[in-house]
């Protein structure tokens, strides 16, 4: 019986830890498919978290918070895209700046609004909504189907994005732009627009991920609360081979590796906790080595277009 409880707890934690990563990573998947690598994702994530907090307080509900969070994430991504796509500045440097700026501006706004020494915010949280029948499945039921609405949104989004990428004309153009923007342009695709909106979409999802973190998970906002998840999301995209469905799985995999770490610490094994903290990364490394077949990034990832500008 305690074993079952531990397994259930572990699965629940995996989903909780995996979902924000999945949202951000699925958005970044779309962005990267267009040939843009948005290292500024962390900035969108934290802006989403702050937007979520401010929105929830101002509008008075977690739902409104998610909306404002999405807008916050989109806004940050627009700034990134304005420079990296519009002006053709280097994507990596721009992303570095946008992350720095995202963390800085959210901190500044938070301090301006809630005082220099901060306030312990208690935010309205998104409740978990059990799905009838499904949530009663033993062991996995409550882990997968007794979750906040944003989690279900993530489940649904993965196949939708998969369909979008592989089965629609927009998706085809997206992939073409990421592979060979010159060829795509020659075929009449609007390269810059595609890249811009793909980036903004990625930022929007990262914003929702941030808002989810604040509203569905932590129930509060603190400076730097994204804690590097934007970067991990970028790694998850690669682990999921730029395929929205695999990216969802990869995020859940990473989530479960982290969850295992917390469970293991609780069991009080005589292993230094730093090694537990490193565990998800080591496990991912192993998974990558055992992940048969090679994955290939979009050929024009991180390259500005047009080339000579």
């Amino acid at each position, binding site marked *: 019986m305690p074993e079952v409880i531990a397994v259930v707890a572990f699965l629940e934690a995996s989903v909780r830890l995996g979902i924000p990563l999945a949202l951000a990573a699925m958005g970044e998947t779309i962005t990267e498919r267009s040939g843009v690598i948005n290292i500024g994702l962390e900035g969108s994530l934290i802006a989403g978290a702050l937007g979520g907090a401010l929105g929830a307080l101002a509008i008075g509900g977690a739902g409104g918070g998610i909306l404002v969070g999405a807008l916050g994430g989109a806004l940050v991504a627009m700034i990134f895209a304005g420079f990296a796509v519009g002006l053709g500045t280097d994507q990596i440097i721009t992303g570095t700046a946008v992350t720095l700026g995202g963390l800085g501006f959210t901190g500044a706004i938070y301090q301006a609004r809630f005082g220099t020494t901060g306030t312990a915010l208690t935010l309205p949280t998104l409740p978990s909504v059990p799905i009838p029948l499904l949530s009663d499945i033993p062991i996995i039921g409550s882990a997968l189907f007794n979750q906040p609405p944003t989690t279900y949104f993530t489940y649904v989004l993965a196949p939708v994005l998969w369909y979008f990428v592989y089965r629609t004309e927009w998706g085809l153009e997206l992939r073409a732009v990421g*592979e060979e923007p010159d060829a795509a342009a020659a075929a009449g695709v*609007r390269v810059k627009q595609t890249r811009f909106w793909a980036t903004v979409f990625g930022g929007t999802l990262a914003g929702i991920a941030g808002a989810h973190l604040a509203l569905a998970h932590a129930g509060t906002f603190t400076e730097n609360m994204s804690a590097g998840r934007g970067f991990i999301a970028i790694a998850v995209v690669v682990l999921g081979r730029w395929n929205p469905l695999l990216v969802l799985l990869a995020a859940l995999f990473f989530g479960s590796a982290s969850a295992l770490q917390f469970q293991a610490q609780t069991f009080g094994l005589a292993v230094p906790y730093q090694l537990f903290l490193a565990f998800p990364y080591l496990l991912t490394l192993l998974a990558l080595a055992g992940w048969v077949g090679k994955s290939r990034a979009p050929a024009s990832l991180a390259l500005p277009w047009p080339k000579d500008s």
Partner: protein
Amino acid sequence: MTEVLARLDGITRHFGHVKALDSANLEIHSGEIHGILGENGAGKTTLLSILGGIIHPDVGFLEVGGSRVRLQSARAAWKMGIGLVHQHFTLVPGLSVLENLALGRRHTGHRWTLHLKEIRKEASQLGKLTGLTVPFEASIEELGVGDRQRIEILKALLRNPQLLVLDEPTAALAPAEIDQLFRLLRTLAEEGRAVVLVAHKLDEILSIADRVTVLRQGRTVMTAVRADVDTAILTDAMVGSSSSEGEAPITPARNALPALGQSSDGLAQNRESGNRSVARLKGIDVYSPQGGLALQDVGLEVMSGEVIGVAGVEGNGQRELALVLSGRQQVASGKLEIPEHVGFIPQDRNREGLAADFDLTENVALALHRDPQFRSGPLLRWKLIGLHAAEIRSRFKVKSSGVRALARELSGGNQQRLVVGRELSRLPELLIAENPTRGLDFTATAFVRGELKKLAHDTAAGVVLISTDLDEILEVADRVFVILRGKLTPVPSTHDSREAIGAMMLGSRLEVH
């Protein structure tokens, strides 16, 4: 008599300090096939790219259907009914052939599916009509230049353009395909559309064009009706009666620099003896990336002083044969004896021949860096390499701003000259050449063919010429082989007629006595 479909007027376009076009003019009538001729680097591609919305002129304007337009992008050009088939392929490698055909094409109806079935149907109908058959499910990386060219043309045709602009489409096609393509172009013209066609083979232009425009150094030097011109007139126009601007035609004169490759292991003496075996293949099997056997039990002996021609329709194992002969590919089984340094002219100059972001010197170094002559200790002797690059540039008339110009800035033909020049000038003991004259203008073509022969006959090297161009093989080769489905078959000297080899290439059995 006919209405003007499109007009380019006083177009000037610079790239940095290079003036690619210099108040060039072009008038296209509906219902005509308009041939464009010019030496490598004359500005043909630039002019066509302006029509296609890819490049924007510095000065001058474009009229379509009587009104001035500014084409900001290829998309705008497509919308005006102008379809451009590029000289450099514009296919997306990560996508399948069918997806490439679907790309950017506003199919009637919604965009939330791909309409692949409809496109497939249309494309195969069109394919039957034109002979342009392509493997729909294959991914672009697997395909050779011939397939890629066919896909490009099909892609443009599927959009039903009013004006079809083709930049050297015949360079990568087999003779039968060229005939079919020309028939198709004629049908289009008869429907009242217009075709602009660039080709380097004068007879091709003369056989199909209604009117011809000749470009020289970015200027339009002549536009004439087909009936008013012949080979001599066109040649004159292209080259210029006197080389006024220092652009002498390619001369086969040898330069003072020591020939490469000789200093190494006293090769030169050995070569005098002649009629040695330079390379020997026996029972070679090679797997293709897709898994099947690309080469099957191939045997071949290359003797010094001879040019071996390998004819075949593309995709029958030429690529693997070339890679094996040049020591660039592991074999699955069989015996392989080849010299240490083999010159190699790969079929795809952009991908395998050159590094686009390297300058001329560095691209030359790519082939020379292993030669001890160009090394001193851990260092490369850049001065010497630079001199050689300059030598290749002048001998093969690579039109560029200098040896520090980047490969990506060269016109297609000039890129080819660079690769060919680099490999020929090494005086290799064995040279493998895949379609070495593809994209070269006719002067350069004649020059390179001469050089191949000379390499074999004068320096006693072995040369293997792998070509889809039968005329080239018949002109240059001493012995001819046909490659078909990975098998290499010698053509008996009694049967080396154009027709017989052509039949063998397509797989008809030949009665050999």
